[in-house]
C-alpha cells in the first residue's frame, strides 16, 4: 500500500471507535455517522482551529485573574491570610516538602503555561501552514493533551481544605475568586486541546487531493 492518508483515499476515520469507512451512513438529521459506533463523522474535527483559538484566547484572559486573585483565604482567629497559586507553591517550598513543592510547581504553574503557549504555537503553525517538523509538533500535541488534567490538583486541594477546616471562630478556609478562574483555565485548555485536530498539521505537507 503506498502511503496515503484516509482523506486522500476519500475515507473517514472515526475518532471514537477508529473504524475507517466511506462517508455514506446518514443519521435522521442528515449528519454523516459512523456505521459501527454512531458517532458523527468528519474528515477533520469541525471548525477545529476556530474553536481552539476561541478557547485559547479565553484561557489567556482568565489566566490573569487566576494568578492575581487569591485561590483561598485561611482565616485563623479572625485574621485572614490570602493564598494565590504562586504563594501556595512558595509556602510548600518553605515547609520543606521538596518533592511535593516541585510537583505542585509543575502542575499549577508550568503545565498551564505549557498548555497555553504550546496550543498557541500549534494553532499558529496550522494557521500559517508551516511545513517543518510536523512529527515534533504532533509530539507536543500529545504531551499537551496528556498533562492538562493534572493542573486540577490545586482545585482539589482547596475542596479538601474547606471540607476539613471549618471551626467557625478558630479556623476556616474561604475559597477565593482565583479558584474559579483557575478551574476555568484548566477546563478551557482541555477543551482547546480536544478541539484541535493534529491531522491539520500533516495536511499542510500533503499536496491537496481534491
Amino acid at each position, binding site marked *: *500500500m503506498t502511503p496515503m492518508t484516509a482523506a486522500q483515499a476519500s475515507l473517514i476515520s472515526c475518532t*471514537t471507535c*477508529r*473504524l475507517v469507512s466511506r462517508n455514506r451512513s446518514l443519521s435522521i438529521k442528515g449528519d454523516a455517522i459512523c456505521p459501527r459506533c454512531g458517532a458523527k463523522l468528519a474528515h477533520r474535527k469541525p471548525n477545529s482551529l476556530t474553536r481552539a483559538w476561541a478557547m485559547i484566547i479565553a484561557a489567556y484572559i482568565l489566566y490573569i485573574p487566576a494568578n492575581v486573585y487569591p485561590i483561598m483565604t485561611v482565616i485563623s482567629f479572625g485574621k485572614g491570610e490570602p493564598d494565590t497559586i504562586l504563594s501556595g507553591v512558595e509556602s510548600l517550598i518553605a*515547609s520543606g516538602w521538596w518533592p511535593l513543592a516541585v510537583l505542585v510547581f509543575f502542575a499549577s504553574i508550568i503545565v498551564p503555561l505549557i498548555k497555553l503557549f504550546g496550543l498557541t504555537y500549534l494553532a499558529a503553525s496550522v494557521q500559517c501552514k508551516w511545513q517543518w517538523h510536523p512529527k515534533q509538533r504532533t509530539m507536543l500535541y500529545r504531551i499537551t493533551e496528556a498533562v492538562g488534567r493534572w493542573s486540577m490538583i490545586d482545585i482539589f486541594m482547596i475542596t479538601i481544605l474547606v471540607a476539613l477546616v471549618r*471551626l467557625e471562630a478558630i479556623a476556616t478556609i474561604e475559597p477565593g475568586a482565583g479558584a474559579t478562574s483557575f478551574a*476555568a483555565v484548566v477546563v478551557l485548555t*482541555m477543551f482547546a486541546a*480536544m478541539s484541535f485536530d493534529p491531522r491539520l498539521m500533516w495536511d499542510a505537507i500533503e499536496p491537496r487531493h481534491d
Partner: protein
Amino acid sequence: MKMGNTAGHFIIACQDCDLLHRQRLLHDGERATCSRCGAVLYRKKRNSLDYTLVFSMTALVFFLMANVFPFMTFKYEGRVQESVLFTGVKELFVQDMWAVATLVLFVSVVIPLLKVIGMIYVLLPLKLHHQPWQARRIFRFVEVLHPWAMVDVYMLGVIVAMVKLNDFATILPGAALYSFAALLISMAAAGAALDPHDVWERFDVAKE
C-alpha cells in the same frame, strides 16, 4: 459501506496524522505505531476484557466505600471534626462557589461512577457474547468521559492538602481515604487493561 475489512485486510488510520495502515495481528503485549508520526495505532492486550471487567467491578465496590465511610478527621486545639468525601463539594456550594463545586462534583464523583458503571454494563454482557441495550452509544460515552474522571489527580490534591495542614493540625485518614486510594488503583488498572479496539470488534460479532 464498511471499510474495516476490505479484501481481507483491516485498515486503520492514524488518529494524529491520518495516514492509512494495514492492520496486522499482534502478539500479546505488542503495539503498532504509526510509520509517519509515531502515534500508537493499536495494542494487543492479554485477556483485556476479563481484566477490565474485574478491575471495574473492584472499582465499583471501592467507590461505594469511599463515599460512605469517613474520609478524614481534623484535630485542632482540642476540637475534632470529621468529613466525608462529599463534604468539600457541599462546603463549596455553601460558600457560593457553585461553578467550582459542580466541576469538582462531576470530575471526582459523577464521572468516575458513570465510567465504572458504563464499563460493567457494556463488558459483562459482552463477555457472554451478548450486546446490551444501547451498548455502542454507552461505550462511546464512556470513552468520551475518559479524561474527565480525575480520581488520580484528586488523590494528589488530598496529599497536598494534608501536607499544608500538617504543621498546625492533626489529620487522621479515615477508611474512605484508603478506599479512595484503592479506587484510584483499580480504575487505573481497568484503564490499562482496556483495549477499546477489541471491544468495538466484539460488538460486530455479538448478538443485539
